[in-house]
């Protein structure tokens, strides 16, 4: 188990991690700047780089999980 893949949401909040991450968001990566690139995996197992997606067109990127 890593700190990133936390098991208990209340412990994540109690440790102040939510305040730290939500507090940092407005101060990093702004409109007009270049977005971070990175490699992701499609559900069929193929790898894709974000830069492959935004090469010829725009991209709407939503982050999420079941909750």
């Amino acid at each position: 188990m890593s700190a990133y893949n936390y098991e208990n949401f209340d412990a994540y909040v109690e440790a102040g991690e939510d305040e730290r991450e939500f507090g940092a968001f407005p101060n990093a990566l702004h409109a007009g700047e270049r977005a971070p690139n990175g490699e992701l995996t499609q559900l069929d197992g193929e790898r894709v780089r974000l830069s492959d997606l935004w090469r010829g067109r725009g991209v709407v990127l939503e982050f999420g999980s079941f909750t």
Partner: protein
Amino acid sequence: MYTREAHPGENLPAHATFEDKLAAAARLRDELGISRPILVDDFEGTVHLAYGGLPNMSWVLGRGGLILYKAMWTSAARIGDFLERVQAQPLDLRHAPFHTEQLEIRRRDGQAFTRGLERNGPRAVAEFARAEELWSQRARTARSRRS
């Protein structure tokens, strides 16, 4: 992009391996009937953390990866409005970019969110209730510091 599970529970614990994460993303697609392509971040959340690590952010990126819109939470209506404006923008020398920033209010817990907590299990529901108490305590502390 599928990330860590924000509210792990009995039915869906925190991912233990990348294969777990990939399988959970496929279940998300099937259970919620998602037709958009789903991309899965690595086990350590490298790309998710590079964008700030928040649970339900949305970003609109122009050609070449230029950030056009960033939002702490996803609102389909706001993204729709934004995309309409972007598509209507003229690209000529009489027009120049301008930067805006806004702060808005959202409902903390919609019905879909509650269904997601229940789906993940009683522990996910109970831990969110406890987190709400912690947020109330924080708000009270902040108010008493101000007065």
